[in-house]
């Protein structure tokens, strides 16, 4: 359990720190893959960083709009450092829109860009999984296996590590496909399919209390993971048979 990293007098919250590390790793891997595809790696960094900054601004702005009553009396808080004063989804949507606008504006081949960023995103997800273990989130189901970790007083599956390893394995597969020069779009689809399958396969190792359920007890991550994997597989089939 390490929700706060203590550096002398400095308390750094693990969550936001891991988020920054994950974004940086995602961009670094994405830029590397982009160069392998004959793109300019700097474009990946630029699109990612513009998206990140725009997303942060939008997430704060949305918070200000929703909680305007609170901000009205203390306008300086709009620019405050409070790490909770953000709304997630407006930030994500604007970040994606701005990154997409960059790709469009610079006439980058969208499919190749998606191929390049897919393994990077998976590496970022793996980092977020490790952070989830450190902060005690997404607890695993109880088990007596020798590699169980103790969380909340019970030995549990280190499911966050299973998920991180699966994400890294899928990232490696996608990178291998890029390095091998496989058809544009296939690395991104393999990444989607693999990640969907990993969530579908591994979700049952999460503690029941850490699983969101739908439709009378089905685990949401499994349902969505399977659906994404099937759609990606269908896309791969289309891609493979296009030139056959």
């Amino acid at each position, binding site marked *: 359990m390490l929700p706060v990293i203590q550096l002398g007098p400095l308390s750094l919250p693990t969550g936001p720190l891991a988020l920054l590390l994950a974004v940086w790793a995602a961009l670094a891997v994405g830029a590397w893959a982009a160069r392998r595809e004959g793109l300019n790696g700097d474009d990946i960094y630029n699109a990612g960083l513009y998206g990140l900054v725009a997303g942060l601004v939008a997430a704060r702005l949305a918070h200000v709009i929703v909680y305007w009553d*609170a901000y009205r009396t203390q306008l300086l808080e709009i620019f405050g450092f409070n*790490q909770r*004063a953000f709304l997630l989804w407006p930030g994500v949507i604007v970040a994606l829109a701005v990154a997409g606008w960059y790709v469009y504006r610079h006439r980058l081949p969208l499919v190749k860009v998606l191929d390049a960023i897919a393994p990077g995103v998976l590496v970022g997800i793996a980092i977020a999984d490790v952070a989830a273990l450190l902060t005690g989130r997404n607890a695993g189901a109880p088990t007596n296996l020798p590699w169980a970790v103790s969380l909340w007083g019970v030995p549990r599956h280190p499911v966050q590590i299973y998920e991180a390893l699966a994400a890294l394995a899928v990232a490696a597969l996608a990178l291998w496909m890029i390095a091998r020069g496989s058809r544009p779009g296939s690395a991104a689809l393999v990444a989607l399919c693999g990640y969907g399958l990993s969530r579908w396969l591994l979700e049952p190792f999460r503690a029941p209390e850490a699983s969101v359920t739908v439709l009378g007890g089905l685990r949401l991550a499994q349902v969505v993971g*399977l659906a994404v994997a099937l759609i990606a597989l269908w896309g791969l089939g289309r891609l493979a048979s296009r030139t056959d």
Partner: protein
Amino acid sequence: MRPPLDSLLIRNVESLTMSRTRWNILIVVLLIAGLAWVWVNRLPAGDVSAAGALPPAPAVGHPAPDFTLTTAAGETFKLSELRGTPVVLNFWATWCPPCRAELPELQAASQRLAGQVAIVGVNQAETPAEVQAFAEKLGLSFTIPLDQSADVSRLYRVRSLPTTFFIDRSGIIRQMQIGPVTEATLAQSMKTIYP
């Protein structure tokens, strides 16, 4: 001349680019196997709440660990006696500048939501005299339990001040914030426990 192993491998992988029929069979097989795995791992409705399995711990989704302390006003405070009322449980100290910055927000909230939400500010390891003088200076009127031995801070794994827990009516922690709350983040987190 035999072609190098690498290109053989690639050709084999390429020859795996199956016919449309085979792709469709693969998709149907995955669909069936997939639904089966989802079905065997479903969680029976009511099971989770019946298990209520998470032990008390200072984390979101867990029941808030109970404790008893003496308040600055000399009364006995027991967290579990507030069951039925949403609780904002804050940890602070007089020497901590961000705590000083947020205490007026908590005071304002305690007046605005009097009788509806309990604002509790646990003081960490200071003498009653110090705390009382400080509370009078800032005009704090909410409950201030004194955690003189810092046992409760340890129980809640408070690593840095201020830290705030938002506890719902049934005693479950719904949100926790490390670092100071502002009026806006207080309103946001309050949504998870009230009304």
